[in-house]
């Protein structure tokens, strides 16, 4: 094959990979508001959900480095804010929840209100400020 064509293919491959990477990174940590139709109950989860204004429900898996960073961020927000609790579920122990809540990656975080309604979901490693802003907006409208 012509060396010029080979170079073009390699450059194309690097370009495609870069575009995929930028799109993936852009989607990480984006807060997506939910329509309020999904309700998470302690029964469905198999874990007692706290009776707090806001529950930060984090789904993790064993092969997941960003889950640890997300745990630290959510844990610290819950520690600082009154009425905010952090619950973490390991999907390796509850694999059926991945299908039930259509989870596409770990970490995935649900922001639940007092009634267990999923108000927002965040895929991937999250940004502290974005989570706090979302919590504030839910509490204001509550």
């Amino acid at each position, binding site marked *: *094959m012509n*060396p010029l*064509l*080979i170079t073009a*293919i*390699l450059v194309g*491959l*690097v370009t*495609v*990979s*870069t575009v*995929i*990477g*930028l799109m*993936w*990174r852009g989607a990480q940590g984006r807060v997506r508001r939910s329509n309020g139709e999904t309700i998470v109950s302690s029964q469905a989860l198999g*874990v007692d959900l*706290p009776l707090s204004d806001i529950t930060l429900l984090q789904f*993790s*898996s*064993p*092969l*997941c*480095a*960003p*889950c*640890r*960073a997300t*745990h630290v961020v*959510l*844990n610290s927000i*819950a*520690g600082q804010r009154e009425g905010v*609790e*952090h*619950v*973490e*579920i*390991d*999907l*390796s*122990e509850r*694999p*059926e929840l*991945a*299908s039930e809540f259509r*989870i*596409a*990656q*770990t*970490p995935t975080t649900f922001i639940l209100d007092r009634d267990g309604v999923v108000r927002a979901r965040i895929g*991937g490693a999250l940004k502290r400020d974005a989570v706090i802003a979302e919590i504030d907006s839910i509490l204001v409208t509550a």
Partner: protein
Amino acid sequence: MTTNPVQARTRLASTGIDPRSPRFGAGITAVLLLVVIALSLAAPMAGTLAERATAPGFILFVVISALFAWGAAAGVKRHPYGAVFRALARPRLSPPRELEDPAAPTFAQGVGFVITLVGIILHLAGVPFAIVVAASAAFIAAFLNSVFAYCLGCQLYVLILRARNARGAAA
């Protein structure tokens, strides 16, 4: 208050690795895979099995595959690129802000091994462009890992769980 069922993390302080080490290794792998693709595209598909098995691009691809197998079986902590990182790159960098569980990059090594093994088998069976396609797939994963810190295990693991659930529901 917090609830944390992932107890494995408490072990991290003693077993964790510098997260830049697997990304450094993935960078080397990505460059080598580009060389494999270039060599495979430059040489026409050979006719006999012996010729196919001795093509330079194929030989380099087998070496990369063997390194994936090493990383997956021995754990990413004992991967040769990790030793290169510790000898050459680590002394020039500041200490890591946090350590990473080696399970995730070890899993990614296993995925790399499976992809490259499929390419090797199809190439030896005479399938045209098998090496180019397999090396391209492995390149994209290695590139994303190295440049963007993409976590392959984070997505693949959940996909596998959901596929298992669907199969269980259908059975």
